[in-house]
């Protein structure tokens, strides 16, 4: 028995040696034949999970880059993501049970008294494919072109991008102009609802029957950037970017509560009702948005080879949102491993038309309104840690764990509404595992 095992092990060992020799010869042969040309693949898997049974997502990515020389490359990237869980529908919690029409109009879901109204019909799968080509034109100029396509059951996007770079001061300064355009189509479940119209009881309503199946939006991007080598250990970038969106920018699944603001009645601060039904309105956003941002990033390598990467972004738009983002990473580098703590802080001020709820005395007079907390006053924090291990054959295994926390704030309402939690926070955990080869 023991002899048999030893023999098998010996055989396996010899087989392994032969295979290793053969693969070395093969890899060696390949690497001499194509000394400059190589494929670099980065594959990763992200798990994202929110607290309280809200959204969870699984997202595999594979990115493959063909390097023709140090400046010429072709990249393909494929991303898939699957979302499940529940998402806030925009309505306020109430001291009564609330029942909501599902987006398709063919069902309903409810929220218990004092509970956040969450739409649990929310689920989606997205697949996105992008490709990018980058190459030099001559000693002083380089360019890049790219394309993008993505598909979800209720959303499609098609985009193109291009960039032109000019090197100056012996390549110590690089000026880059990037332009991008995309065309998106939204075909919401149940059709496109009428903004600021009362959510009907079911799909038999005339509001449902007159709906369009789809809407579209177009997005244009321009980025102007300066990259500057500061010294042999430091590089800095400064970008100005402008992004315009036009078309249907509303979230078809988000609604707003109308709250009774008659301070003399006994329903002050409760849900406003007409014919014994709570009044909820579909949200409506303007049909254009212009965002501008200033971005600064610096990377510095210390004497001990550790790397500090810090960035700051200031963004403002014509919806009244302004935001600040600070992101910092510090990579401790050891022989063939690294450990990278990461911190991110983000704060935004609300859009002009953001409203947690609408008053019953004035809801017919608003032009635009959304109770989407992502357009409200919001602070978010991310803390993360990335670890990587580089093998002798230059492949790398890496993993990253991070926690994301959101805090919303705003006006607390009146009457009965003040006892409801209008701005719940959100916690999410993210785990990424990847392999580069």
């Amino acid at each position, binding site marked *: 028995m023991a002899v048999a095992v030893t023999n098998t092990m010996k055989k396996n060992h010899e087989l392994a040696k032969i295979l290793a020799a053969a693969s070395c010869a093969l890899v060696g042969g390949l690497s001499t034949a194509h000394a400059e040309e190589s494929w670099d693949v980065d594959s*990763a898997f992200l798990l994202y999970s929110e607290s309280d049974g809200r959204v969870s997502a699984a*997202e595999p*990515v594979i*990115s493959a880059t063909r390097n023709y020389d140090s400046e010429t490359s072709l990249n393909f990237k494929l991303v898939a993501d699957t979302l499940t869980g529940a998402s806030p529908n925009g309505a306020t919690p109430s001291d009564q049970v609330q029942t909501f029409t599902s987006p398709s109009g063919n069902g309903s879901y409810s929220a218990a008294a004092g509970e956040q109204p969450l739409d649990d019909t929310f689920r989606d799968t*997205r697949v*996105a494919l992008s490709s990018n080509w980058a190459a030099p034109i001559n000693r002083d100029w380089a360019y890049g072109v790219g394309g993008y396509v993505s598909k*979800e059951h209720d*959303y499609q*996007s098609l*985009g193109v991008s291009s960039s032109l770079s000019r090197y*100056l*001061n*012996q390549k*110590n*300064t690089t000026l880059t102009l*990037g332009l*991008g355009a995309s065309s*998106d189509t*939204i075909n919401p479940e149940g059709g496109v609802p009428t903004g600021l119209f009362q959510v009907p009881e079911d799909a038999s309503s005339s509001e449902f029957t007159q709906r369009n199946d789809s809407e579209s939006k177009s*997005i244009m*991007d321009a*980025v102007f950037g*300066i*990259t500057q*080598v500061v*010294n*042999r*250990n430091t590089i800095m*970038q*400064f970008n*100005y*970017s402008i*992004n315009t*969106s036009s078309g249907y920018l509303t979230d078809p699944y988000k609604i707003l509560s109308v709250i009774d603001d008659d301070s003399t009645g006994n329903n002050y601060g409760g849900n406003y009702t007409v014919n014994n039904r709570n009044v909820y309105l579909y949200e409506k956003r303007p049909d254009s948005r212009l*965002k501008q*941002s200033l*971005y600064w*990033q610096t990377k510095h*390598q210390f004497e001990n080879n550790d*790397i500090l990467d810090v960035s700051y*972004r*200031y*963004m*403002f*738009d014509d*919806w009244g*949102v*302004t*935001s600040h*983002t600070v992101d910092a990473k510090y*990579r401790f580098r050891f022989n063939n491993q690294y450990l990278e703590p990461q911190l991110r802080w*983000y704060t*935004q001020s609300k*859009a002009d038309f953001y409203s947690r709820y609408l008053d019953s005395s004035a809801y017919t007079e608003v032009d635009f309104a959304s109770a989407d907390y*992502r357009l409200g006053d*919001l602070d*978010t924090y991310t803390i993360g840690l*990335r670890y990587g291990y580089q093998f002798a054959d230059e492949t790398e295994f890496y993993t*990253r764990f991070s926690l994301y926390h959101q805090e919303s704030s705003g006006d607390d309402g009146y009457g009965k509404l003040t006892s409801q939690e209008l701005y719940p926070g959100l916690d999410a955990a993210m785990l*990424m595992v990847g392999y580069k080869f």
Partner: protein
Amino acid sequence: MSKRFVLLSLVGVVITTTGCSEMGVKAWERETLAQQEMSLINEPVESSLNDHVYFSKEASSGGQGFGGGGCGCN
């Protein structure tokens, strides 16, 4: 507030560009900067996954690159 910020930033850009010719290194001093870890986006896969999460959870996007899109999540 935002206008003043833009003005200050423009002044910053002018100072940076005019000062740029004074900065920099010679070709043989690029050993450190040439490391893949020193490129501005050295982990593009992680960056794109993060951008996607933040795009779907916050009102801002872009800055380092394009403003994002191609997703019904926002």
